[in-house]
């Protein structure tokens, strides 16, 4: 297409101004237009990039780092997992929510020790259920089975169920709720 120049288009120019190489002049102008176009596009593209990648640098949601009351100590017995819902204030982008459910945990005693495990499956994040008959934890989405201690037995889960920090406050039980990276062998906070 660049070769298809019309000679007559330049006929009105005096001979001394006749460009030596019409093709290269055109290429030069095209390149100039391209550079300007890129600059003009950059006016939108550059801020767009920082706008859209904002969540990589700044947290857009936040729950509670504090220990959240989960129930009375007497509720929990050895060998009987109880599912508790945890409520806390939460920030979600532009909203601030007071006392909303931020997650849940399986809580039970092992001897005198109190243990809490996240209900989020380490595989792909489905909610882990408890099968009381077989005394096993089951993730219903992809059939991961865990022992009552949370150790992975069969199925695709890459690691044991995620333990949560738990403490007693007088006769109350409190849990620090956290989410962890999914699909990894090591347990790392998300």
């Amino acid at each position, binding site marked *: *297409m660049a070769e*298809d*120049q*019309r000679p*007559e*288009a330049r*006929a*009105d120019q005096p001979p001394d101004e006749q460009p030596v190489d019409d093709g290269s002049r*055109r*290429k*030069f*102008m*095209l390149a*100039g*237009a391209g550079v*300007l*176009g890129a*600059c*003009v596009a950059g*006016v*939108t593209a550059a*801020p*767009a990039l*920082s*706008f*859209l990648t*904002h969540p990589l*640098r*700044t947290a857009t949601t936040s729950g509670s780092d504090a220990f959240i009351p989960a129930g009375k100590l007497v509720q929990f017995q050895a060998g009987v997992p109880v599912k508790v819902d945890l409520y806390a204030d939460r*920030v*979600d*982008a*532009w*909203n*601030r*929510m*007071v006392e909303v459910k931020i997650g849940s945990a399986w809580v039970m005693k092992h001897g005198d020790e109190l243990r809490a495990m996240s209900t989020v499956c380490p595989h792909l994040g489905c909610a882990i259920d408890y099968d009381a008959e077989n005394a096993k934890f089951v993730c219903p989405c992809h059939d991961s089975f865990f022992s009552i201690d949370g150790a992975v037995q069969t199925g695709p889960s890459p690691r044991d169920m995620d333990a949560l920090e738990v403490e007693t406050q007088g006769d109350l039980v409190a849990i620090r709720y956290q989410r962890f990276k999914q699909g990894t062998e090591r347990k790392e906070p998300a």
Partner: protein
Amino acid sequence: MVIDWLEERTALPGLWRRFAEHPVPGGPRLRYVLPAVLVYLFAQQCVLGVLLASHYSPSASDAWASTVYLNDQVESGWFIRGLHHHGLSAMIVAAVAFLVQLAVTREYTRPRELVWISTVGLVVVLMALGVTGNILPWDEQGYWAAQVELGIMEQTPGGEALRTVVQGGAEAGNLTLTRLYTVHAFVLPLVGVALLAGIVVLGRRAQAGEAALEPRRAQPFAAGQLLVDMLAMTLVAIALVVVTVQTHGSELYAPADPTSGFQARPEWYFLFLYKLRMFFEGSLEPVATMVIPGAAITFLVAAPFVDGMAGRVGRMGVLTGLGLMLASIVGLTAISMSSDAANESYLKSMAQADKEAARARGFAKEGVLPEGGPAVYRNDPEYKVRALYKEHCQSCHELDGWGGEEAPAFDDYASRAWLAALVRNPNDKRFFGGTKHDEMEPYPETGENAIPNDQLDAVVEYLWQLSGETGVDETLAAQGKALWDDELDCNNCHELQAGAEGSGPNLLGHGSVAWVARVVRDSSKPDLFGEDAQMPKFGEDKLDDEALAELAAFIVQQREPKE
């Protein structure tokens, strides 16, 4: 290779060639750039609009909060929103300039009538985009502008039904925003694309015809005219960036409040209509809002045909009409701007609105409760402490006309006037009348136990001094102390040494934040109100130290003169 492959399947390279080799009559010209500038601005508006849409939530409860979030918290958000705002203004300027150019050069006649009409349509679409877009943040400006614009709509024949349909119900709310958002983000841009395509494609067709008359002087579009177009776009882009940075984006007011008296003004490109409406009162209003604009648009659409048909007379008539129209638009806009600039009540209310906006946007940084924009004020510390007061104190202690009468009211608490009234009659309902603390004798002006006003003033000044307040009249307070210790024997019941117990409360530092906080924690302490105290104790489990201090400070604040 690749080009052939694409050509065979898509014909795209051929299209590019047609685009690039389009003959430009007479070679590259600066006066050919406006359609290209319009295309550039429109494309930029689309991209910016999509970016904004990726962070905006069109519901009455979320619109303001999400707009503030994207503007104030997301990086570059203010710039993107500002560029989108000013970009529309630039498009309107460019479209009107193109209309003027077509009319002055008489290019709007055959064969460019449809280019002209498309441009008129584009101006209308752009103004509609402005109207709908400004409502979306659902701030004071957007909300009140919507009220006015929907009101204008209602004046048309069948307007009530029209308003209900556009508004999505009898009142403005969620459906108003979803509907206007749909119109702004989908419907109008599609119409805009069609009109813009008309301007460019039909314009090029006309150009090709002209080039064919003088083929020797024509040049291909690429790269001469393309470079000129790009230069023009670059200049417009630079100007837009400068304006956006200088104005720090686009204004964003406090959340929509149907009870506020916000003085809404339309965008600059609507001021002429706003001013025009003021010349037509009452039932004549539709003349300004409907009849005149309708007639003007009809005239614009007809202009190229009238000019083409009626010869010299037609040309003069059309040019005079267009000139008058432009002059009155400019004149009305100027009048409107200068009258606002000289209107003190308007300027004052805008300054107030700016202050309110800064306050609300500051609170929004913590996140807005899901109830909606105005819920942002619940992030105000004053609001939070009021909520504490309501929860823990109000059922017994009245304040601002609300609450129980079982315990002293806190209006004006522990001010000089309050103290004087208390000494005169401690058993008044306002003081301890609702409690079991009835041992203190009243000290009326006359009769038994009477004390004259000057003595009362002295005792009150002494009490004021005891509370730790500043601005004490020392001589008067000294007189009060003498009365307190000897003549009135107040010290028989009220101790003033730290920790000392009497039958009445120890009054050292009474009414101070620390004293009030101690009373709230446990008023039955022996140096306070003793065992008879009925007030519940507020331990750490009910109020932590921080909340207690805030609450006590709030109660003490009640004696400060109200604004």
